[in-house]
């Protein structure tokens, strides 16, 4: 199975969407969620999540707190803020627009 690299700039959107869907969840959970949704087709170095999480938190789109995970381990849980929800909506729209453009471009006539 060939795995697709994570496209530059898309990780933030994936994380925001995951948090929107899963509610409050720790880093491992986010990674599992992305892997499951992508059917393991994504070549994600899970560690790269953490700088992304920090960046999103610094922007005020997500917030974190320390808590206990299912197996009673200490873990850091992240959730979306109101600003994050707005950002997710905006980024979803722009992604869809971009995807539409790409689609039209690729569907267009080719010389071959």
């Amino acid at each position, binding site marked *: 199975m060939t795995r697709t690299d994570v496209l530059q700039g898309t990780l933030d959107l994936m994380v925001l969407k995951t948090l929107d869907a899963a509610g409050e969840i720790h*880093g*491992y959970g986010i990674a599992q969620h992305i892997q499951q949704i992508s059917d393991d087709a994504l070549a994600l170095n899970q*560690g790269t999540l*953490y*700088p992304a999480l*920090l960046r999103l938190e610094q922007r005020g789109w997500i917030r974190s707190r320390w808590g206990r995970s299912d197996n009673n381990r200490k873990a850091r849980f992240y959730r979306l803020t109101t600003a994050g929800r707005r950002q997710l909506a905006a980024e979803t729209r722009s992604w869809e627009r971009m995807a539409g453009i790409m689609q039209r471009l690729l569907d267009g006539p080719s010389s071959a």
Partner: protein
Amino acid sequence: MSTGRLRMMVARCAGLFGRRRRERELDEEIRHHLEMLADRYIQDGLSAEHAWNAARRDFGRVAAVKEAYRHQRGLPMIEIVLQDLRYGIRSLRRAPVFTLAALISLTLGIGANSAIFSVVNAVLLRPLPYPESDRLVHVTRLYSNGAIGSSLDGRLYHAVADDAATFESVTAIGSTTGFNLAFGTEATYVRAMPVTASYFNVLRTPPQIGRPFTPQEDTPNGGRVAVVSHGLWQRFLNGDAGAIGQSVQLSGEPYTVIGVMPEGFRSVPAVDVWVPLQLARSNTGGFNFAVIGRQAGGTGMDQVASEMRAITEGGLQANPDFMFEGQVLFPRSYQDVLSGNVRTALLLLLGAVSVVLLIACVNVANLFIARALSRGREIAIRAALGAGRRRIMGQLLAESLILAGAAGGVGLIVAWVVGPALLDLWPGAGAEWRSATLDARVLLVTAALSITTGIVFGTLPAFTLDSSGLAGHLRDDGTRTTQSRRAGWIRGALVASEVALAVVLLIGAGLLVRTFVNLRSVDVGFETEGLITAQMSPNSPRFRDSAELSAFYRQGLERVRAIPGVQGAAVVSGLPVERGLNVLVHDVEGPGGEEEMKLTDLRYVTPEYFSVMGIPIGSGRTFDVNRDVADAQPVALVNQEFARRFLGEEQPIGRHLQVYARGPMYEIVGVVQDVQEMGVGRDPHPVMYVPVDQAQTGFLASTHGIFPISWVLRARAGSGDVAAQVRAAIRAIDPMTPFSSFRTMDQVVAASLSTPRFHVVLISLFSGLALVLASAGIYGVMTYAVSARTREIGVRIAIGASAATIVRTVVGQGVLLAVAGVVVGLIGAAGLTRLLESFVFGVSTYDPTSFLAAAVGLLLVAVLASAIPALRAARVDPVRTLRTE
């Protein structure tokens, strides 16, 4: 800036703090993630070890994640700087010898600069210790030849005080006088300053307790009132507020204390008592007044100057005698006037000390280059691992800034300790009313100095690292390093330039040392050995009359001579080497008219003075105790300079001199030899001596008002505490006229040389430092050159070069560098020593001895400094060096 970016900035700034906690939290988060991953693989049936490996694979490289995380967390720029600093400290600690050498060089350089600058700051930059002192203006006379006077007469003072609209208030300060202050049964010697009532307004400092003088008290016969210093009040009046209104005796006259000045207030010169000047409007009072004005708000110095010109012109129109021809009233900033006499010396020493810093910098730059070269491999490896050129330069710079910063810190401590001491010892710098404590300016200058030097010697080595050399270092086996041509050239030039700088300083020091030696060998004109002097102030109405005064001296001298060990004693109104009262005398037999007024020093003596001092009589006779009495023919002695300057070829003996109009005519009965009258090394000065019995009342009042008189006594060595016995002897006949100081004549002479001595000590210290630093520089470069060429030397020895040849080659190289430096230094010094013109005595500023000595000295040092590495080179074992290939 959008709120998002602002939020990001705030978050990142916050990220700079609590690094340790955040780092721990990240570790914990990563560990949690890895454990969760591993758990899942174990559930899938993998062994613990395999599960862990799989988890690591999924997670990616932990170190890279952490790096990216840190990068995101804080401000990368600052993080990098902090990291560079930490790295710098670590790598400096790994090279303690290098670090110590660099630190010592820099600390000496920066410390010396901070210390001298703190004195410059105190004397030239800090405002005078009075409120709004930048508005204080000293008014004096500008002569047509461009010279500037120091005083005004009463008429000019009144003109300025009455007419100047650019001044808010104006004060006149009279000559400071020694008084005997008595309170109850205690007497002490104090300095008093007569000032106008406006004095306290001009300086904006009223008495802390009591009140200033009223204008009425400042008129002739306005009353005897005094304001005293805080110190005198504490010391002598028991610090009691009840002292206000008390009566004290000032040289026998009762004065009422009306005020006490605040603690810390200092006049210039510092005195303990202020009395009203009481200058009559009709009295010009001679050119004896320092006039200080306080500029009105909103006026510039230009306005003051043009108003002073207008007052001069107006005054001359009303009265042609208002001022001498061609002179004009001239305002100068009081601050500038007070620093005038030490300004040049201060700036020259600041120049000298910056040269020392420059040399220190050159040395450290050299050390850094050597270190950068020997670290070539380390740097090349880091470059290969992806550190950019800028990053590597940044790390080198961080090291130099750490060193410079540390040196700056120590430098501040040096300034803090040495600065005030230096000011105290600096003759004429005004330590009694200035302070050289650290302030923001000294701090700032030291910091700027440290950072600049750090940047200068930190970036220099970076230029010697050419990128092509980096790859070469990687191929290198580590036991030898190739010194790039560029680095070698730069290092040579650096050493030559520090030699040049050291030569300049050494020549300066040589000139001042020779000056001091010349001054020391000046014959003062009398026997100083065993001569003790004691000062007192007979400034009291009782002693206005010469009969009373000479009776006091006669009685006192009798008792003093009776003290065992005392061989002779006399009294003089002004000690040689110090100075006496200047008067105009009229040469009666001369052609007459204004031109025949001679400006001479006038001193009274008791008849034994010349024999006690050992001043030879050139011709004629000396004073005679029995013959030259009060009602006999008034007689005078003049010194040789008086005869030479005023009487030329004519026979002095038998001529008559008149000191004051209608005064007695003194017949010259003898000529005495010149002594160093105005200070050691000064030009000869005309002096006229009269016997105390024949001294006029006016002369006594004038000289006692300004100068203390001196008892001189010759005592046999080891005759015990003569001073205490003399004190007791005089106290027994007059307890109200105490001695102010006891000094040996050698001390008096030494005090006259204190300024040149001070210059010599400082400049010698600085040039000694320069010499040491320069020789360390030569040594360092030659040592490095030898170690870099060990293989080449080994080969040479293998093919038959003798040890002597090797030593000659290495020493020759060192000497070549030194010669280049010495030549440049000699040329530089030839251009610069002119600046020392006013400081040298008996030696030309192009003195060949000083120039030669500096050149030879440095060449010798160069030979010695390169001899050690040369000998090491000669002992190179060719077999070993070749085997390491």
